[in-house]
Structure formats: C-alpha cells, structure tokens
C-alpha cells in the first residue's frame, strides 16, 4: 500500500492506483476530459497535468501510477498555467454555439473554463469548419465542430458495448468522430455515449431541444425497465419528466444503463397515465376521486365470499405495497386467490451479458418473497380455470406501471373479461379497458417516482428509493388502496427527523426587538 502526498494531504492508496483516481478518492479537484472511471486510459486531453516532486516536467495524472512517497500537486502556478493553455488549445476550433447547444449548463468546457481557464483567447486564425448535425443512428446526433476528440465515446463502443461503431477519422485539426461506412451507431447502450461526452458533440435525439438543463431538477431513483434495477437519476420540472441518466453503483449497473430504461419517463409522464378514477355507472364512465372510489369499494368487496375474490399482481410494485395488499387480502378477505401475472414467460431468464434482462419487472423477486411469506401458492392456471368455471366473481388487477413491456395485455384482458366484475388498479392508461363492460372501476396508482419503497432485483439486492415528484395528483399507492379497501383510515407516516417543529428555524426577530420597533407602535402618529 504506497503512501503519497496530494496537495499536502498524505493518503494511502491501493497498489496500482493512478494519480487521478487518488485525486477522486481524496475529493480533490482536477481538470480532465478524456479520463472516465469506467473506461480505459487514453491520455489524449492533456488537461490532468500534475507536478510530481523530483520530476523535471509535468505529467498526466490519468496514466501515472502512484509509487511510494510520491509528492503530487496540481495547485502550483506551473500546473495552473499548463491547464489553462491546454484548455485554450481545446477551444481553438470550438464553435462556441452554447446558446443552441443542449449540453450548455452541464458542459465540461464551460465548467472547466470557469474553474481552470479564464484566459483571453490568443488564437487569431480562422476556425476549422466541420460537419454539424450528423445523424449517427436512431438515437444520437453528432456535431463534429463541438467535439474535442477525447475519444470517450470511441472507447465506450469498443470496451463496453463491444460494437465498435465509432472511430476517429482524418488527421490533425481536421480529425473528427464518425461511424464506419454504412454502420450507424445502433446498439442498446448507445445513449451512454451522450452521457459521457464532456461537451455537446453527442446529443440525444430524444432529449434534443426539449428543455434547457438548468430548468430541470434531478432525483435519484431506480429504473423500472427490467429486473436489473439500475440506479438512475430522473430529470423533471413542473411540465413532467424529461430524461433519465445512470448513477454509479458498483453492485448493480456500474456507470451505465440501457437505452430502453431511458424511456422510463415516458410511462411516468401524464400523457400515458390514468389521470382520474373512473367508475362505470349504468354503462357510462364517470370520473371520481380515486380515494373515494376505493373507500366505497370496501363495502362492495365485503359482500363477496373469500372464494369469489381474486387478486392479480404484476411485478411492478414495491415490497411494502405487496406486503400490505397481500396481507389485507389474506387476513381481511381471507382469500388465497392471489396470482402473479408474468408478462413474457419465454424470455424471462434472458440476459444480454451487460445489463438488460428478460424479466421486465423491477420487483419480481420481491413479489415472490411476499407471496411466500403469506403462504400463497396459487398458479396462473388456477385463475384461468376458476374464471372459466365462474368461481371468481370479482377480480382486482394491479396492472402494469410500464405499459411498454407488457405485450400480452390484450390477451390477458380477454381472460379477465370472464370475471363478473373487474377492478383495475394501474397507472398506465389502457383504452381497451373503457370498452370492457365488466371493468367497474379504474383506480390510478402512483408510479415509482411518486412514492418511496423497496425493489428487490434479480440478484436479491434490496434497493430503497425516495419519492421524486408528483405527476398525477390524486393517485394512490397500493398500500393506500389496501388500507382503504379494508375500511381502515389512511395515516400519514410521521418521519421523526424531518418533523416540522424540529427542523423549524429559530425565530430571527426576538420579542424585545419587536417591542423596540417604533414603527409598529407609532404607525398612527407618523
């Protein structure tokens, strides 16, 4: 374990650690473009210059391994000067079209210029013009003028997605990123190149020009696209959600996520959502508050005998929700007719070797665990049989939250049509449900960004996530549905540490100050 000194701080690192990794480990700032913790070292941007005591010249931190007793700094005037003029070289041919660049606001060039640059440009030559708005493939647009040739995207396609679509062509100041002839950038992880691009050279077609990034807030959550359970950040504002980006988690997804998961915001946004509770009265649909609808359902459900009630669950909800809902049905309604809706049986175990899994539910493991806990062993074939025999009269279905990964919905709806009454709980809006006359209620549910809970991924890893925002106001969680159906009142969970009284700031204006405030007392006389 070699010891080294970074900017005067002594730290101990693992053998084989490069200087830049040690800087990151010690939370020291260092300029860099081409180095990315998830990729190999390229050493092309020449910005991560450091001074190692005893060495005559500056060295790049990303490709220098720490040895015993190294004394490193990146705060000396020499280093600062070298970074500054290194940055000037990067910006020689940069078009500076920040106003129309999607990266503006989270751009490496902007950030590092403000932190390490702030020079007056000394370049009097004309800028080299390159290609703008190059269509790289179905997801990504390239602007070669903005590119600083850090080669992160090229390394990503060779090392991570292993598809080798991108390369650097031409020489000198005319070199540019491009795809090999006739081969578009088309793989299931292509949008990661947009994330790792430190400038606005690669932009996502999906997000392009839709929002400026400074209008967006972000919040960490878990991708519900498949059972891998990638850690992601959702970006949203009051108009809805706009994009999803991966968050580093060594145990789950590393630095990456797939393109399918990035569509997560589409089924959370209002356009694809069931926005109000719908009730069928005399054949016509009427809108009503979801909470009130579920409350009146509790009386209806109690009329049925346990054998006549059935519950269908998809693997899209949190462990806590399953626990209360299944617990309610098992203890209050005394039914064991709880069935697991598997959306794609054939490809359930599939895995592409990187992240994508065939099980398109974030919490199948959690559902199975809770079913096990309550001793429910009903099979899907039992449901089919019981519906055919008309034994199940009322069927409660907690439908898919993500409408895109349930290709068998039509087929399943045909099956549910056999029940006398269907109560549909779900966040995704299905037009087909309006036509089914036996669907008496449609109750909107919250999606994963609107509630907190736990998902258990394919590996058995429990991941807790927080609530990010609210998209549909009146929507309920399955926990709330379960409590209301059982006829219990809803309670607002009190979290001690964020309790208002405790976090309230002390009164800034003391009483004696108020008494002394002559303006208050002499107001009538002034």
């Amino acid at each position: 374990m070699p010891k080294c000194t970074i900017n005067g701080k002594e730290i101990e690192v693992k053998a084989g650690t490069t200087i830049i990794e040690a800087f990151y480990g010690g939370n020291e700032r260092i300029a860099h473009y081409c180095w990315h913790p998830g990729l190999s070292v390229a050493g092309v941007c020449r910005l991560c210059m450091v001074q190692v005591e005893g060495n005559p010249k500056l060295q790049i931190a990303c490709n220098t391994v720490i040895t015993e007793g190294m004394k490193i700094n990146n705060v000396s005037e020499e280093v600062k000067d070298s970074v500054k003029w290194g940055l000037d070289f990067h910006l020689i041919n940069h078009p500076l079209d920040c106003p129309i660049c999607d990266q503006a606001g989270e751009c490496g060039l902007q950030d590092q210029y403000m932190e390490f640059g702030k020079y007056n440009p000394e370049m009097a030559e004309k800028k080299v013009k390159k290609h703008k708005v190059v269509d790289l493939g179905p997801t990504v647009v390239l602007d070669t003028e903005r590119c600083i040739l850090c080669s992160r995207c090229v390394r990503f396609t060779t090392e991570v997605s292993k598809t080798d679509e991108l390369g650097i062509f031409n020489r000198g100041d005319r070199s540019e990123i491009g795809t090999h002839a006739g081969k578009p950038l088309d793989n299931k992880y292509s949008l990661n190149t947009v994330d790792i691009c430190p400038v606005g050279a690669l932009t996502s077609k999906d997000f392009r020009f839709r929002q400026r990034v400074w209008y967006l807030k972000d919040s960490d959550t878990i991708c519900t696209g498949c059972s891998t359970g990638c850690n992601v950040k959702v970006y949203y504002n009051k108009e809805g959600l706009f994009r999803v980006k991966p968050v580093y988690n060594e145990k789950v997804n590393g630095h990456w996520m797939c393109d399918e998961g990035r569509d997560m915001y589409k089924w959370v946004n209002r356009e694809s959502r069931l926005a109000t509770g719908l009730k069928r009265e005399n054949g016509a649909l009427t809108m009503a508050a979801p909470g009130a609808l579920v409350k009146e359902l509790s009386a209806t459900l109690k009329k049925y005998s346990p054998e006549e009630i059935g519950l269908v669950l998809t693997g899209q909800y949190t462990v806590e929700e399953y626990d209360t809902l299944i617990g309610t049905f098992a203890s209050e309604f005394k039914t064991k007719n709880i069935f697991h809706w598997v959306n794609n049986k054939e490809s359930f175990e599939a895995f592409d070797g990187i992240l994508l899994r065939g099980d398109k539910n974030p919490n199948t493991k959690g559902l199975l665990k809770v079913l096990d806990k309550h001793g429910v062993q009903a099979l899907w074939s039992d449901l089919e049989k019981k519906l055919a025999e008309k034994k199940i009269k009322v069927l409660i279905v907690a439908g898919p939250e993500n409408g895109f990964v349930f290709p068998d919905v039509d087929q399943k709806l045909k099956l549910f049509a056999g029940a006398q009454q269907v109560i549909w709980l779900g966040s995704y809006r299905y037009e087909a449900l309006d036509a089914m006359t036996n669907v008496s209620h449609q109750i909107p549910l919250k999606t994963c960004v609107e509630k907190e809970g736990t998902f258990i991924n394919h590996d058995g890893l429990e991941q807790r996530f927080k609530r990010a925002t609210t998209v549909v106001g009146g929507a309920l969680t399955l926990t709330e549905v379960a409590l209301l159906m059982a006829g219990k009142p809803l309670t607002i969970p009190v979290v001690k540490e964020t309790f208002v009284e405790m976090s309230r700031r002390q009164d800034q204006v003391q009483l004696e100050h108020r008494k002394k405030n002559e303006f208050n007392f002499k107001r009538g006389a002034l």
Partner: protein
Amino acid sequence: MSVMQNKSEISKWYLPGIFTGLGITMKHLVKNLFNRKDMITLNYPEEKYDYSPRFKGNHVLTVKKDGSLRCTACMLCATNCPAECIKIIASEHEDPAVEKFPIAYEIDILRCVFCGFCEEACPVDAIRMGPEWQTPGLAQSQFIYDINHLAYRPTLKGGVLTHVDDEERHKAGI
C-alpha cells in the same frame, strides 16, 4: 398623518383664498391662450409625446435577411426574465446551419415589467424593446403576444432586421 394647518387669522376668512385660487387659474388661462406652443397639456390621443428612441416599450423579435426569425431559442431571455413572462418552445430546424429555432415564442405582456433583461441576455440580438407603449386590448388573450405579433405586426412594416448575421460571422472565421 401629518397635516399642516395654517392657523393664522387671515385663513379664517373665506374670500381671500377663493380669489388667490381663481387668480392662478386665470393666469394660466391667459398664458395658454396667447402662447399655445408652450402649453403642457396635450389633446391625447390625437396628439402624443415623442419618447426617446431608447425607450423600453413592447418587445420586437428581429428577423434575418430572408425574413425568418433571428431567435435561436436558447432560452436565455426566459431564464433571465424576472417576471417569468416568456415562454419558448424550441424545435429542430431542417437547415443544419440554423439547427435550433423557436416554433412558439410567447410573451405575456401583462406580466412583463419592461425591465429589458431579455434584451440584455440575448446573445444574437433577436429580441429588442421597441418604442411602442400604447397597446390597448379588449381581452386578456390579446395581451399574450406570439411570434406573429412580436416579429411581424403591421407597425414593424415587415420586421426589424437584426445586426448579427451568421453568414458574415462564418466568413470572418468565428
């Protein structure tokens, strides 16, 4: 309330005050009758004041030589706007040299405080504060100005030409 009261003897009499007041009125009447040029009051709306050309009135979106909008939909004006009255929807232009342009640009003029920050924030001289200030309307909807009004209203006579030209900039090697 601080009210100044004249408690002198003379103020108790009625007529001296009346005649002083009438005297002032008559003085102005005679002055205005014989020297109409210097009269302060105007016959608004037939007569109007001329304001300075730097007056910050209703916004104008400038146009390029071909008549299309100069605005690149960078949203800096909307970001800078303290009244949050600017709403822009950007889209992709078919010409790669233009790339981004607004398909909707709305200013809610009733919210606007005419501070001129939008004009200052604009990197391409796409929005200016014009000289107009008399803009009556009958309904609230008439005060939400769209692209058509901001850039091509009849008083602008075909639009105001911007002084930032991309082609010239590219020729200069910027």
